């Protein structure tokens, strides 16, 4: 793992192993808060901040935490950072904190953070763990913004709160409802899978062509 390239880690976090579109983690907050791009950005940055901090601490303490109680220890560390983020948001961005509501404290149980702690930070040194936190955080934020972009643009006719299509546009209000979240996410996941499959297919062919020069 130590020899893993930084660019590969980023590619994994944003596309090939995207926490939302490929790993399907943290669905609850993803579906609930992506009604506006502002919410998505706020949520994405909060999760990224918590993810980086918890990855650092868990990776640093990975040799001290006993194996049997590791999940409990991770949760304690994560909830500590979530509390910090929550208080900071209440103090400096009260409006955003109000519109995200319960979903900020719920970052504690966001699967992405626990999954990265268990799958990566607990097995790797501090520096790769930071990069992993950044990459996965960006992947999560990008996914949220993409979803929220489609839902806000067509579902309320606005972007970041500004009207886009003018007053005559009749918004597809179903898109901002939970059903719209599921349908939009389904289409995005299908598109991402298509891209990934095509890439895999191309790599496979390239390998075989260089091997025996088969007819394809």
């Amino acid at each position, binding site marked *: 793992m130590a020899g893993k390239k930084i660019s590969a880690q980023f590619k994994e976090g944003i596309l090939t192993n995207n926490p939302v579109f490929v790993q399907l983690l943290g669905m609850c907050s993803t579906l609930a808060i992506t009604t506006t791009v502002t919410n998505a950005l706020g949520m994405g940055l909060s999760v990224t901040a918590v993810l980086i901090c918890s990855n650092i601490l868990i990776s640093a303490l990975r040799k001290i935490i006993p194996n049997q109680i590791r999940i409990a220890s991770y949760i304690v560390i994560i909830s500590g950072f979530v509390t910090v983020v929550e208080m900071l948001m209440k103090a400096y961005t009260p409006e955003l904190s109000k519109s995200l509501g319960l979903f900020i404290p719920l970052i504690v149980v966001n699967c992405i953070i626990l999954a990265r702690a268990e799958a990566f930070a607990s097995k790797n040194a501090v520096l790769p763990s930071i990069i992993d936190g950044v990459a996965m955080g960006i992947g999560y934020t990008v996914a949220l913004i993409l979803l929220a972009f489609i839902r806000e643009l067509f579902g309320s006719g606005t972007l970041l709160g500004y009207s886009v299509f003018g007053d005559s546009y009749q918004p*597809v209000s*179903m898109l901002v409802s939970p059903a719209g979240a599921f*349908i939009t996410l*389904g289409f995005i996941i299908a598109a991402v899978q298509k891209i990934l499959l095509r890439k895999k297919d191309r790599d496979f062919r390239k390998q075989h062509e260089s091997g025996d020069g088969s007819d394809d």
Partner: protein
Amino acid sequence: MPDLLTVSPSPHIRNGITTRRINIDVIIAMLPALVWAVYVFGFRSLFVVLVSVASCVIFEALFELVVRRPVTVLDFSAVISGILLGFNLPATVPLWIPIAGGAFAMIVAKGVFGGLGKNIVNPVLAARVFLFSWTRVINTFSKPFSALPVFSFSLEEADIVASATPLSAMKNGGLPDFSLVDMFLGTKSGCIGEVSAILIAVGGIYLLIRKVISWHIPVTYLGTVMLLTFIFPPSGTDALQFMLYQVSSGGLILAAFFMATDYVTSPTTPTGKMIFGIGCGAITVFIRYFGGYPEGVSFSILIMNLLVGYIDKLTKPKRFGGVPKNAKQ
């Protein structure tokens, strides 16, 4: 070569019934209601239905071309979806409503699941619920026999003599302004295809005689609604009268004959069909009584659509000879 022995897997007996023939029967059965709609709401209603049919056919063909699947518009199932979608809209809608509805029905509710036979919910009802996005637009009903401009893309407010539907009147705790004769004949405000209870029932009976549908779903569906509304009328109204108003209003009869009976999204066994019909009826009444919307037919069928797989599993008949006579279950 008569001397050759043909060995093939079953089925060996074919009766020549194709998807296409069944679908043509369904279209014939819907025509009386359509003719009546033209009489009540003018040619605007026919135009809305035609746009809706064109939208369904074009979007299905386009989607199948894009995903490189064989184009199946010639089996007429998209045409039926189009007519039913038009039937579910008031004649006053701007034309982008049937276009958007057709796209949603054919692409999101049917195409991405694999096309005809693989969709889990009725595409038309899914589209109708999708169109609730524009609640005000699709809930503006014109008074019967008020002349509507036929070809304009969207009607001006001044063109529409708005009228409350029987269901919204009952939702507000009362009986509709229309007489029961109006209700069953269809001289009342409402969606294009659901105004005349009698003519829709005639079409339904045609389908029953042609054996396109079986009696199980319509009878249990309508029976459940009748029973529940007869036992629990709101205080101060005559139970029989209330029951008749409930049965004849909204899309209930249209849905019971034409949408709940969709082969793809309803159970296969007779017992399963009856469970399905009772479920639809109960949920319809619950939504009409306690829900936020005046009409519960679309939601009830969509909810029961999702349960079809389980109902089929539960009511699977035992294979002949598969279980010994005295065996324990």
